[in-house]
């Protein structure tokens, strides 16, 4: 049913930490425009998988392709430059920096003219203006002062900043690792809406979550991870949450991967 080429694929990823094998020949496929959920037990290797894909860790073995081209990101920055934006499980915001500084960290806008060219001066007002636009576009703008330090924000607000940053800058893929884990009902809903928004703009999204109702609500496909590997990929319209949980925990044998991809 999906005959298009995948945007992002991984084959045989391996990552060892000392004696722990976090990724054990894991595969991964993401198709254009879809929301792919990744689920699995604690410690199954989900975060390691997306860290490998987004350049935050370098896999010991395996191959990653973006639009068919092999890539080997040595840092999150390289992945970002290739259009892959990630919201990490631990948010990755710098507490003492302002909201605007955080949103543009690593891709600052410089002043036009010699000030920017020779003195490399930042264009603060341009960045603040764009940051404000990004946040309100995503309906997240209850923050008064875009120059305020991130550490003064609530957990929900911080999550909003991180998601807005990824949504605004991601040009090919947006990855979110448990974006709602610490959030309340209201805040979680906001993030889910945001994810659907981003999808509408045509960007494929990888969503890691332990919340089955959320996963089944938004996902187009569900990648089930177990013991460091992709166990299977299912279509949420064809399987129930109970099935997914049963596969995830090993209670039931999964269908072959090919069935869905």
């Amino acid at each position: 049913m999906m005959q298009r080429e995948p945007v992002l694929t991984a084959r045989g990823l391996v990552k060892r930490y000392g004696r722990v094998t976090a990724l054990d020949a894991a595969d991964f496929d993401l198709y254009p425009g879809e929301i792919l959920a990744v689920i699995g037990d604690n410690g199954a290797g989900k975060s390691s998988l997306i860290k490998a894909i987004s350049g935050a860790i370098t896999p010991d073995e395996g191959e990653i392709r973006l639009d068919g081209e092999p890539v080997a990101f040595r840092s999150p920055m390289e992945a970002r430059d290739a259009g892959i934006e990630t919201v990490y499980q631990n948010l990755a915001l710098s507490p003492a920096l302002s909201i605007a500084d955080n949103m543009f960290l690593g891709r600052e806008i410089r002043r036009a003219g010699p000030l920017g060219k020779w003195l490399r001066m930042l264009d603060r007002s341009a960045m603040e203006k764009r940051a404000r636009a990004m946040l309100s576009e995503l309906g997240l703008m209850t923050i008064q002062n875009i120059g305020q330090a991130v550490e003064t924000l609530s957990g929900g607000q911080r999550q909003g900043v991180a998601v807005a940053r990824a949504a605004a800058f991601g040009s090919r893929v947006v990855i979110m690792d448990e974006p709602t884990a610490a959030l309340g009902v209201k805040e979680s809903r906001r993030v889910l809406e945001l994810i659907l928004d981003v999808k509408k703009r045509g960007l494929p999204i990888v969503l890691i979550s332990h919340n089955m109702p959320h996963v089944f609500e938004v996902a187009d496909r569900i990648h089930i991870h177990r013991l460091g590997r992709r166990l299977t990929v299912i279509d949420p319209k064809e399987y129930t949450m109970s099935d997914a949980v049963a596969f995830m925990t090993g209670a039931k044998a999964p269908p072959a991967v090919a069935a869905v991809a």
Partner: protein
Amino acid sequence: MTEASARGGQPQEFEKALAGGDASVAQFESHDRTMVERLQHFLHSSPAAVPLIVLIASLAIFAMLIGGRFFSAFSLTLILQQVAIVGIVGAAQTLVILTAGIDLSVGAIMVLTSVVMGQFTFRYGLPAPVAILCGFGVGAACGFLNGWLVSRVKLPPFIVTLGTWQVILAANFLYSANETIRAQDIEANAPLLQWFGNSVRLGSAVFTYGVIALVVLVLVLWYVLNHTAWGRHVYAVGDDPEAAELSGVNVNRMLLSVYVLAGLICALAGWALIGRLGSVSPTSGQFANIESITAVVIGGISLFGGRGSILGMLFGALIVGVFSLALRLIGTDPQWTYLLIGVLIIAAVAVDQWIRKVAG
């Protein structure tokens, strides 16, 4: 169709209740701010304000106590001369501390580079500009060594620089054979080495080139730290290196560049040191690490990284300079100066802590 797929694409039932709710993220009415709170907030948002106020207050008090001998253009510019070296080294220290590091080797790098500049000229007969360049090269190399150990081998900066401090200092003594190069010889053969000792006089105010270098250096770094991407990244790395890395800062390269720059600044200090002493003396600069850390701390820069202004470091160095000169002029036992500086260090940080706590 199963339960789950029946609900696919739909929020759970209870989530629909959100529709009528308050959409904003919980915010609390903040009670009206009192004067004190406003002051705290101002001080909190301007990290160099406290040291500046202390500096001005101590100038005022000592001016009243001592009078013209202290509060004269000559004496005040003398203070500048006396803190020039510590201030330049302090600029290097500031960069490192902003990344949540610490550099115990700054003084050693400074002396070694000054010795290299001197010995390359006198022992090998190189032209002074070349020798000076070599000095900068050595400074950069020392900084690179520190930076490499910190960023690649991932060792704690305190330990790395505790080690390189001893290594570099020992190398300095071994290489120089403890030999002082005399001022007269330098003046005669390589006056460029003493260049920073030259001065501009305005009335009885004396600004050595070393002092001017300090001020220019601090202003340039202030600009760089606040108005360029590199500078913001320094703060981000010091604040939370993992977050900085994940949001797209190349932390390793950043750290490496900071330590190398610090090494270069120490070489500048080494050159300026020849200007100040006239001679090249391998035993000088023994306390530069502690003195520069003191300036940074009194200047309100956090040892945990990511917070503070390089202007604060300059004020911190000046505060120490003002106290030292003033107490010397009053004629107290020099030990009282050390005692007071000790108290000042603790007081500065206690005030800072208080502001942070109450300003929230």
